[in-house]
């Protein structure tokens, strides 16, 4: 089953293979390794020098339903009894890069998932997904740059 997934590996140490999803600036290393006094760019695992992954290898992939899968999702029967979060958050779709088309599909997904929610749950889910969409878009822009 396809799923949303992010493969950041933004910086890695070629000596030992250690990887982290943030730039190893002094400020960031102090934040994430407080008290360890790690130099800027240094690997916290072996002390080697970390390198940025190239854009080619720093692949970031997001998943949303295709148009066909969206139709299938709409046709799904509404479950009876209490609806759990996993009932409405299980994504279906294929690996695609996020862009204008993906935004539209994401909005359609919102509609499909909202069918299973109460009014208050729908409001919460919409807020959550809207926030997530903004986050995904900002990451996409960062990668494009």
């Amino acid at each position: 089953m396809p799923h949303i997934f992010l493969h950041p590996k933004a910086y890695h140490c070629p000596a030992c293979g250690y990887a982290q999803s943030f730039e190893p600036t002094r400020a960031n290393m102090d934040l994430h390794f407080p008290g360890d006094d790690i130099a800027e760019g240094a690997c916290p695992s072996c002390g080697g020098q970390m390198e940025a992954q190239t854009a080619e290898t720093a692949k970031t992939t997001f998943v949303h339903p295709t148009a066909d899968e969206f139709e299938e999702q709409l046709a799904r029967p509404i479950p009876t009894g209490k609806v759990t979060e996993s009932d409405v958050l299980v994504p279906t779709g294929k690996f695609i890069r996020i862009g204008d088309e993906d935004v539209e599909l994401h909005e359609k997904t919102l509609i499909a998932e909202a069918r299973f929610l109460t009014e208050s749950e729908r409001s919460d889910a919409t807020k959550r997904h809207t926030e997530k969409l903004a986050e995904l878009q900002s990451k996409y822009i960062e990668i494009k740059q």
Partner: protein
Amino acid sequence: MAAKNALCDYGGGGFEELRSGDTLNGASGGGSSTPASVISSSCFETSGRYDVASGGSGTRSFNNDGLNFSTGATGTSYSDVDFRLGIDLASFNSFNPRMTLLSQLANAGSTAEAFQGLGNPNISGTAITWTAKHIGFECQRASSASTWYATNADGSTQTHTSFTNSSDTDMNEYFWIRSSSNVKFYLNGVLQVTHTTNIPSASVSRITFCVTNKATASNTGFTTASFTLAKDAY
């Protein structure tokens, strides 16, 4: 009867009674200290403590090795073993939760995926839902080779990063620790990956051990000897 006092090792040989003003696990006099830990752990003593599910030829057993869980050789099979913590991550996510697993790949099938860690992702004979909230370790088997990932997800998006684990058929120690801004993942005491994105903070109250053969007719299974989930006491 006189009350019994707690004993403490002050480094002078032997144990002494805890002194007035001491803090647990720390220096005397109420100074800075390492907080005591609260631990939930198991060596899989009894199956009754777990929720189990399987499909196809998936199976599990609790024996003197710990927990064995495997898909069996029939296609579209899975095995899922869950441990209920009795508390939600929201209650302890700010207390440096951390987890240790002692585990090995016991049956190396051609195709499979497996998760071990905090969280309760859905699993079927074809896939694991990796976007469900979790923190732990992911093993992907493809063409009879393993790729291991440090993995976490917040309910919508997964962050996972591969790391080298060339001896996964040995009993290895997998460890992660969550702080306020990140999760660090270790293999046999060596830091492998640090994640800062999509870290769950609530709605997680189970530990899961699961494997699926992704609709392929091959048997993949793990032996997990024990797990420990700990947090700072305060």
